[in-house]
């Protein structure tokens, strides 16, 4: 199970890559999450330009057999949605921490202490 040390995590199995100055972040789902979902075939993220509160939905991921909501790990403005996922949703399976990223946000609140470390996340999923 790949759980990079430089990322932060949530109990909803999202990862967060914070910029050095803690103002922006890139968000996706973890290796564990993509394995649990199976083949991902469709991403519906229609929240570009919206400010969304922590814990609210920013989109939906559809695997062959299941559908799962995507939740904001932090409160922020969605600046960009990964356009490559429209035609190649399988990037989330193939490269969850790289080309399979989902959104980039500008943080409204720079308190990120609620996020889990790689260590904490590892413990959460029993890896």
């Amino acid at each position: 199970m790949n759980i990079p040390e430089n990322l932060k995590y949530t109990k909803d199995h999202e990862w967060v890559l914070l910029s050095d100055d803690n103002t922006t972040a890139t968000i996706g789902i973890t290796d564990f999450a993509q394995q649990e979902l199976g083949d991902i075939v469709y991403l519906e993220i229609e929240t570009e330009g919206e400010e969304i509160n922590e814990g609210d939905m920013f989109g939906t991921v559809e695997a062959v057999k299941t559908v799962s909501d995507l939740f904001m790990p932090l409160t922020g403005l969605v600046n960009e949605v990964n356009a490559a996922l429209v035609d190649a949703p399988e990037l989330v399976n193939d490269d969850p921490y790289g080309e399979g990223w989902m959104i980039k946000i500008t943080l409204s609140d720079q308190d990120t202490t609620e996020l889990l470390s790689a260590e904490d996340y590892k413990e959460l999923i029993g890896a």
Partner: protein
Amino acid sequence: MELKNTALDETHKALGAKMMPFAGYNMPVRYTSGVEEHLTVRKSVGIFDVSHMGEFVLSGPQVLNHLQFLCSNDVSKIEVGQAQYNCLPNDQGGIVDDLLVYRLDHEKYMLVVNASNIEKDWNWISTHNQYGTHLQNISDDTCLFAVQGPLAIQALQNLTEVDLSSIKFYRFQVGHLAGVPNVIISATGYTGSGGFELYLPAHQAQEVWDQIMISGEPHGIKPIGLGARDTLRLEKGYCLYGNDIDDSTSPLEAGLGWITKFNKEFIGSEILARQKETGITRKLVGFVMDDRGIPRHGYEIMDQEGSIIGKVTSGSQSPSLSKGIGLGYVTKEHASVENSIFINIRSKPHQATVKKLPLV
């Protein structure tokens, strides 16, 4: 409820399967990728452990009359060595279960029922046994492997003297396979890609599985999980009990009129005959998504104006079409092929077209 394991549990785990509770059994949902497994069955050959399915053996001088009373299809039509798709209607015009009926001998049949319904069916059949039929539940002692796909004969022929190419669709032979005697080799399946279902004693299952994997290796055989089993059957429009049919759906609504024969009396036959005469009001249809989106069990189906006309009973992404597909009940007037319907996905209508089955 404690989950049961099939005889092959350790093998599935060693193969890296993701296991999932299904109908009281711990079952492999996929080994690698469900889409890859699906396409393997369509293009070459795959093996499924579907030992969770239930098997009953019924015998006695009145057994045919008993089955004719229980079943919607005409069981008198099948000879020894033949299998038949069938359903057990209830007395309200709904369906207790769908099943396969195998004629093992003149007065001996095997019923293959859904794992989730083993207890319900057993009670139903026992309750309606005024025929002195001897009933035996061999589910726990029987393993079922489905070897499915266009290369199934090639994968299995080395393991048996039985000429597999001579077994016609919905026929079976009993013979040695991988050194195990009395294996039921049946040209049936739930994938629409051809192949065989093999019924064998549970204590010999491991040996047979291992030998099939070796014999099938040059033909690219792969283990296939229940996830792909579901998408394979859905592309062909085969009903899944608990989703597309249940105690409240009639076989006529479900498109199972072809296994509902009114030349005999059976449980529910009067209600169903009346329904046939007056006409059904809703019908199970297959559909393919035009808009991007994936239909799921329970989603509403709407007409152009946004009025609700039915409900999705099964839905998924089709690995063959790379589009959303589904089955669902709609009112009769919306059931015609090429009719546009709208699936309510996350409160937005997504256009789909009713298609003739099979969808692939």
